[in-house]
């Protein structure tokens, strides 16, 4: 207990004596982690937006006109046999017209004089959960196109592909930036601690001289790195939460109506915990790199 007290006392004394350098390090860690976590938050929301949107994806196969009902039945059976197809619903020309009228509401008189057979009959095909992504949808669409009565297949292809690409780019940027920021943070933590170690060179030499274990000398520096990493990460999470609050209260007001329905979520508790743990690990790693210098003063 006394030993732990002594270690903590030495750690805090080190931090106090190099207060400015320590505060600067904590701020730099916080800014770096804020950038990384902001990318994580954006990726998280874009991914869940994509998943939400993919859940609603339906494939519509438009048929050539005037196909006899027995052929429709046979075609439906064959479509159901395609891997990935969950359900198939036939929409006749009349049903399509009725649907359009319901969508137009009070303006349905625009359709007056138009025959229902102008609209082609179609199949609304719902896909299984794991087939609702751009790659798998393409597989289903290719098989659907092999049926000669099917004239055209639509599934919002461009949207899915563009959005998937966007998410992929954001995720890639997150990890590239994350890698660069991690290297920078390790360098900064190690440098700050090396300053502390240099300023305590005499003390380290004397401790070696009077028989201190290497761990007795190194642990306060590890604690210092750990505190820097943890405080930096905590500051980043608090800042991100504040920015998130500002975003929700101001930016979402100007968003388009359909976007308002989409829930913009904060990072889950587990992810926040991972970030804090990441800060701790980073701090420990930086202090480990710096503590190698202690060995130089062991004569």
């Amino acid at each position, binding site marked *: 207990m*006394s030993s732990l007290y002594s270690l903590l006392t030495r750690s805090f004394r080190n931090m106090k004596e190099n207060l400015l350098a320590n505060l600067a390090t904590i701020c730099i860690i916080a800014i770096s982690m804020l950038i990384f976590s902001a990318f994580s938050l954006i990726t998280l929301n874009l991914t869940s937006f994509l998943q939400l949107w993919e859940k609603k994806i339906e494939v519509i196969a438009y048929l050539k006109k005037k196909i006899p009902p027995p052929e429709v039945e046979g075609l439906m059976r064959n479509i159901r046999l395609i891997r990935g197809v969950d359900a198939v619903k036939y929409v006749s020309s009349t049903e399509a017209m009725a649907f359009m009228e319901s969508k137009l509401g009070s303006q349905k008189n625009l359709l007056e004089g138009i025959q229902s057979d102008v609209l082609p009959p179609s199949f609304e095909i719902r896909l299984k959960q794991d087939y609702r992504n751009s790659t798998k949808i393409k597989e289903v669409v290719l098989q659907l196109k092999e049926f000669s009565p099917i004239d055209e297949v639509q599934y919002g292809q461009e949207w899915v592909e563009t959005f998937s690409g966007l998410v992929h780019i954001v995720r890639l940027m997150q990890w590239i930036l994350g890698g660069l920021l991690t290297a920078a943070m390790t360098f900064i933590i190690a440098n700050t601690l090396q300053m502390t170690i240099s300023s305590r060179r005499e*003390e380290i030499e004397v401790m070696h001289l009077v*028989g201190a274990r*290497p761990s007795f000398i190194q642990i306060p520096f590890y604690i210092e790195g750990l505190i820097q990493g943890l405080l930096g990460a905590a500051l980043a999470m608090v800042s991100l939460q504040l920015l998130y609050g500002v975003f929700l209260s101001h930016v979402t007001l100007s968003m388009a109506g359909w976007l308002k329905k989409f829930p913009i979520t904060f990072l889950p508790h587990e992810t926040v915990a991972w970030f804090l743990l990441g800060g701790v690990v980073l701090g420990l790693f930086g202090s480990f790199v710096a503590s190698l210098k202690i060995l130089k003063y062991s004569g």
Partner: protein
Amino acid sequence: MIHVSHVSKTYPSQVSALSDVSLEISPGDFTYVAGPSGSGKTTLLRILFGAERPTSGEAVVNGIHITEKGLGTTYPLRRTMGIIFEEPKLLRDRSVGENIALSLEVTGHFGKKMREKVSQVLAEVGLQAREKDSILYLSAGEQQRTAIARALVHDPPLLLADEPTGNLDLRTTEDVLKIIGHLHEKGTTILFATHDMSLIQRYPHRTVYLEAGKIVGNVRT
């Protein structure tokens, strides 16, 4: 206590500091290692407290073997001894008491027992009134006495002293030697490196003479 067998030390610059030195020191001995500057006194002591490794040969100190492979870690060896230098090597941002207590803290001693031991050893070196004072306010002699107190606070059986009176005036040197003499009377083994032949004449003990890294004399009183 100390067994030095055919120890040689050549530095990377090819300077030979010690050449085939063999030496035996029994528990309770007081031994001077004497010789002019550059004779190898400090190198011998540095090997004995694990700061240098011999190029060849072997030294055994308090049962710990020091060979050309060196020590994996120095702390078990250093806990068996006290070391003092010409420069006291004290921490200027700490008080006298804190400097001495450091030697106990590193071995896991804290609290009341530690404070009692610090007071006791301060009384032995005549500095009980200066416990709370900053090192900066001490004279050179008082600083050296603080260094001796730090070296002895954990009751080591061996004291290595590398020119501890080199920076002190005659009167202060006498004070320091009296303290070391008392320790010897209490049974501590002393290995004292000095170039001051008058000091050896005033306080005669066994003396090993070094010259250009070789033992050229071993006089027992």
